[in-house]
């Protein structure tokens, strides 16, 4: 941490003003003292006494200490008025992150979605300022909740949905099976998620965590590669959780390619239990990826001078008390 002075010019100005004031005061006091003083003679009979010398020496020490305290106070006060500032580099990137959960809710996904949502619900408390949104789709996309930092609400929704999946509550999937294109329209779903990011002209880190098995059973408007290009164009990363029991199938490869095109990656999941570890991996990699360009933050740094001034003031009061003033 380095400390610099914001109004550097103020220091010489104030010091000169203080010095001038002190000089004027000293002159005035000296003039008044010599005018008012009682003239005496043969004071050596007093000043040559050992006791007087001891007292005078003590007084001199006291005055010297008070002078030091006053100077310290003046310097500290001057510097404080000139606004000492410190600067530090911060990485505020984390707080401008948007994460969109993009859930394929076709029938084959139920058990995975339950696990995925439960894991996310546990993850939410660790977030600091990241916005989370959720969209689910089958043949049409529904916004469960838009991008928000209302983590209590998010947790509540995720927990509720997770429970719904566990209990096969299809009512919560209302609106996701709309239209005549068929079901599991992966490309359409991905585009729908991508379009739900707001404030597109601001510089934020955006990512989609999409859970799907990539089994299309209909005629999507947009194919997955086309959707991936749109996602990449919008500078959004796609992390795909590839829920499959078929291993390295064509569908899996296509999904992996799509994710890599956007700078994200694809993970094969064969059992719901693997999801927790994967989600953490994604969150961590996101964190690593976006602790980018540090920003310089300037803040008031009066610490040392405040301490010096305080010490000076306390010392001055103590000494004045001791001097019996």
């Amino acid at each position, binding site marked *: 941490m380095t400390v610099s002075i914001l109004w550097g010019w103020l220091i010489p100005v104030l010091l000169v003003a203080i010095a001038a004031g002190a000089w004027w005061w000293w002159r005035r006091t000296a003039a008044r003292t010599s005018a008012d*003083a*009682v003239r*005496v*003679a*043969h*004071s050596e009979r007093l000043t040559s*006494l050992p006791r007087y010398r001891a007292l*005078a020496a003590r*007084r001199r020490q006291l005055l010297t200490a008070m002078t030091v305290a006053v100077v310290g106070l003046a310097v500290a006060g001057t510097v404080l008025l000139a606004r000492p500032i410190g600067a530090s580099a911060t990485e505020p990137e984390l707080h401008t992150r948007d994460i969109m959960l993009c859930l394929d809710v076709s029938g084959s996904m139920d058990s995975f979605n339950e696990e995925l949502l439960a894991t996310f619900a546990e993850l939410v408390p660790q977030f600091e300022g990241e916005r989370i949104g959720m969209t689910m789709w089958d043949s049409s996309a529904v916004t469960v909740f838009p991008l928000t930092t209302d983590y209590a609400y998010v947790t509540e929704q995720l927990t509720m949905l997770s429970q719904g999946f566990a209990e096969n509550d299809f009512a919560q999937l209302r609106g996701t099976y709309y239209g005549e294109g068929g079901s599991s329209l992966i490309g359409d779903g991905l585009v729908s998620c991508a379009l739900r990011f707001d404030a597109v002209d601001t510089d934020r880190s955006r990512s989609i965590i999409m859970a799907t098995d990539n089994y299309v059973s209909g005629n999507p408007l947009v194919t997955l590669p086309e959707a991936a290009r749109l996602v990449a164009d919008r500078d959004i990363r796609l992390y795909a959780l590839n829920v499959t029991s078929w291993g390295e199938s064509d569908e899996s490869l296509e999904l992996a390619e799509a994710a890599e095109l956007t700078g994200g990656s694809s993970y094969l999941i064969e059992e719901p239990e693997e999801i927790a570890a994967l989600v953490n991996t994604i969150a961590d990699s996101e964190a690593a990826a976006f602790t980018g360009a540090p920003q310089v933050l300037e803040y008031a740094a009066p610490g040392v001078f405040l301490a010096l001034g305080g010490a000076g003031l306390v010392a001055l009061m103590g000494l004045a008390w001791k001097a019996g003033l």
Partner: protein
Amino acid sequence: MSSLLVEVRTKMSIHAHEKVRGLLAGEYASVHKGRSMDFDDLREYQRGDDVKDIDWKATARSGHVLLKRYVAVKKHNVLLVVDTGRTMSATAAGGGNKRDVAVLTTGVMGHVATQHGDLVGLACGDADGVTYLPLHGTSGHLESLLQRIHARIRTDGAAQDLLGLLDSVRRAITRRMIVLIVTDEVELGPAHEEVLRRLRVQHEVLWLTISDALLTDDRFAGRDLLDVDELEGLPAALRDDPQLRREHAAALAAARGGRDALLRRVGIAAERIGSDAEVIPAVFRLLEKQRAARG
């Protein structure tokens, strides 16, 4: 400038009644020896008058103790030796200025002397040297002597040099005189003692000390004290210390004791004056001491 002599007379009448002033004159007159035999008139006896001068017949006739007065054929010479060093401009024990006390003291003495028909001169001096003003018996002359003393004692005047003044007087004045030395609580050493011893042989020497203000006096509590010699302040806070006060009182007592002892050794009658009110009693006591010493 107003007349200092008028001021002296005013203060004399304030501080001493008519009778006391008469006593003072009596004391002064009896200090001298050698009177002419030319009878002048009679006056009432006052304490201090020489018993030898009582006119017993006139006393028996009138029922009052009457004294013969003679015309002084020989006028006496009174030399006021005034220390004008700058320490004399400081505060006196009574709170007034030592210079004013010194002017009043010399004024009283000079006034009594001129009233008696004697001649009064002045030797005043400090480190700048010694100035002599001649002997005259007029009150106008006395006034000019007082003015000179008043003008020469200044806070920015020269430093004190009592030894130089005394030595100069000892050398310069060969005629026998009454020498009244007015100074302050100066430290007297063997050199002073030697000069005074010689001065004592030549003259009748009287000594008046204008006492200095007590530095630890409560009267000055909280006020700045400035030594006229060193121009160095004596912080008020220091002077409250009880131990310091005790030590200072002891040091002062020792200094006074030493000075008194020295003057006694050389046989010089001395008195101490701290304020205007003390001037006349002190001069009176001084004259009485001197008369007693001469027997």
